């Protein structure tokens, strides 16, 4: 048979029962005290535009930044995703495209696979430079080819022109046959150093 609760025991249990919530409250208060204080609020948040997300390691990841520099933001700004999301803070398209890039990177996709995903979604226009294939090769090679070709033609004309120039020079020399050797030497030196 259980012994009746003594007065001392009853007071102890009552004390413990009263202390428990106080201990819990004080622990919670202590825990709150160790948390970082929230950043002070802005007087008028609407003035700074759309709320921003905290920056994570992904935003500064060279692989992601490099990749986003090759993808065009499709909002119509003409900028690449990286430049747009770090410049036009009103654009919601480039942050969304950034999140997509991050997700694809997290899924283990390679750079080319990520680019291909974007091409499949938005077409080839999503690349900041045309792919070096097919008709696009014309874009890359025409300027260089034109310069080299015209340069080649120019050199050819220069080469051919030497003969005509030699004939002209010979006739000029004939006109100057009366010059003394000293005068001719002086003249040629002057011509050589003629600057402007």
């Amino acid at each position, binding site marked *: 048979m259980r012994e009746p609760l003594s007065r001392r025991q009853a007071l102890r249990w009552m004390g413990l029962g009263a202390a428990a919530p106080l201990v819990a409250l004080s622990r919670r208060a202590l825990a709150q005290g160790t948390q*970082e204080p929230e950043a002070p609020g802005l007087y008028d948040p609407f*003035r700074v535009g759309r709320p*921003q997300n905290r920056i994570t390691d992904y935003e500064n990841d060279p692989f992601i930044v490099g990749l986003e520099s090759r993808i*065009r933001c499709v909002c119509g700004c003409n900028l690449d995703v990286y430049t747009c999301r770090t410049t036009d803070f009103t654009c919601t398209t480039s942050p969304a495209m950034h999140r997509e890039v991050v997700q694809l990177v997290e899924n283990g996709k390679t750079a080319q696979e990520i680019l291909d995903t974007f091409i499949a979604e938005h077409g080839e226009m999503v690349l900041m430079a045309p792919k070096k294939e097919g008709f696009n090769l014309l874009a890359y090679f025409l300027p260089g080819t034109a310069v080299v070709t015209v340069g080649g033609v120019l050199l050819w004309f220069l080469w051919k022109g030497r003969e005509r120039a030699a004939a002209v020079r010979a006739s000029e020399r004939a006109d100057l046959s009366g010059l003394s050797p000293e005068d001719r030497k002086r003249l040629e030196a002057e011509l050589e150093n003629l600057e402007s």
Partner: protein
Amino acid sequence: MTILGQLALWIALLVSAWGTFVGFYGGMTRRHELIASARRATYVLCGLAMVASAGLLVAILKHDFNVAYVASYTSRDLPTVYLLSAFYGGQSGSMLFWVLVLSIFAALAQWLTARKYEHLLPYVAGVTSAVTLFFVATMLFSANPFARLPFTPADGQGLNPQLQNPGMVVHPPMLYLGYISITIPFAFAVAALMSRRLDTGWLHAIRKWTIVSWLFLSIGITLGMWWAYVELGWGGYWAWDPVENASFLPWLTMTAFLHSVMIQEKRGMLKKWNMVLISLSFFLSIFGTFITRSGVISSVHSFAQSSVGYYFLGGLIALVLGMAWLLYTRLPMLQSESHLESMVSREASFLFNNLILVGIAFSVLWGTIFPVISEIVRGHQVTVGPPFFNQVNIPLGLALLALTGIGPLIAWRKASVGNLRRQFAVPVVLGGVAAAVITALGMGNFYAILTISLAVFVTATIVQEFVRGVGARHRLHGENPVQAFVRLVGRNRRRYGGYVVHLGIVTYFVAFTGQAFKVDREASLKPGESVEVQSPWGHTYTFTHLGVSQYDQLNRLVSAASVEVDKDGKRIGVMSSEKRQHFTCAVPTRPCPDQMRQKSFEPSTEAGIRSNLQEDIYIVYAGSVEGTEEAVYRFTINPLVWWLWYGGFVLVVGGVITLWPGTTVRATRQGDTQGGYAAQIVESKGA
């Protein structure tokens, strides 16, 4: 006043049509009364354009929001300086500005041109009147700046915040001055062709105009870069945007013309080519206007899409066909008077300089229009952005830089081995040493090494020229070095001014190199938190977020985020970047009650910039996390940007030296353009 402005435009339409007719007809028939009438027409057009412009300006300054243009681009709280810049901030206003500047230039051309070129002036008046006619007609029938609304709003929509920047007050007028002033050299070229007076006279008549035009374009482009850098907040200054490209194209062809014209003056060569270049420059200035206004190629800088693009396309096609016909019929008169004698000569180097400049112009044009070509051929557009342009143009640009050093020093006709050694031995060695030193210091970027090496080479050639010139004057006249330097430059402004311009170009290239080493870092920081960024020069910057303060300023609500900046552990100061929320007021009362403020545009960003010779610290406040003072920043360390603005300054100084009045132009005798050497020799022999 707007009615007067509108009336002035309609009268200008009639007067420009008359001026075009009497200019060409008077020139062809040599009837003096028609020639005089054509000249008077240009003066009257100038007056009418001023009246029309005054009409629009008064409407803007008096906030006449019943005028659609005023309501679209201004507001009551817009600061006065931006009210003035709103004059050319929109489509139709900028066209009126174009007409104003063109008519002033046309009147100046008639007034200032020496009488010995009088035979060209009626045709010049004809061309400038025709261009004015085109712009006035386009305005009246498609983009009238005086068009009225059926109601009067209490306030206007305001000017785009990105245009509310001091750079934007100066940049567009400068660029317009450059674009528009090309009309004058082009008009003289047409006049020379039509009058069949194709000696070097017309080149002398336009010499200053071409430099003025080129200088304005250069200033306009550089200010545009500055505006993009400080205002757009992306940390760069050139994005190969179609509209940027459109301003670069005529600059390239004008630069080619400025060089090739020297060959025509000295040797009587490249006559056809010079005609092509000056025409091309004018066409490209119109093409740039077409791109900006048609919406055919998307650009962040474009005006609203409108039908004026069709007018410009039609005008451009008519111009190209007309000029092609004129050139074709005058080809026999444009025969070269002498031939190139050597591949190693100044003529050849200038030719290759032209080839590269026009090659770059072609690649830029090609890249700009390739999306449209792709759409026509393949049915879908592609994007041609900075990666393409950099890949194609960097090698060409470096070849051009090399020629900048070679061209001015190499001998005319044919350079001997002795000439080459004398002129280039020291610069080549210095360029090589520079390459070796920076490579040894750890720079690994091939293009950067090459650029710095070539920059040293070109600078050495220029310094060598100045040193030799000063030395020669010191020896011949006993002048002290400062006196000799001043007189050297003063006596041959075109040549030494040109060298200073080249120095400016070299400085630009050095600045471009810095872009290869740019560092970006994003961070979100609570007050008191810091982030470190390593600069390419090895410095460690620490940015500590101080907080965000919000206040009212002029026509905007400002949120300024501040950071304390330490460099290598040493405090260098506090920098701020702002978010600006512009507003308009729903009622005309001032000050505007808070509840009547209406948000006019999305918040714009003002970057915080701190420059020195090595690098810029560029801070952008992106916004805040969930309405708190936890700020999201982008920190950029941008090397060598300051050199760009310095290069622009040097370039302008060089251009002003070249333009400075007082240089006596040596009289060109009949036929001495044919090299001139034989004639001179015979003369000296006779003497």
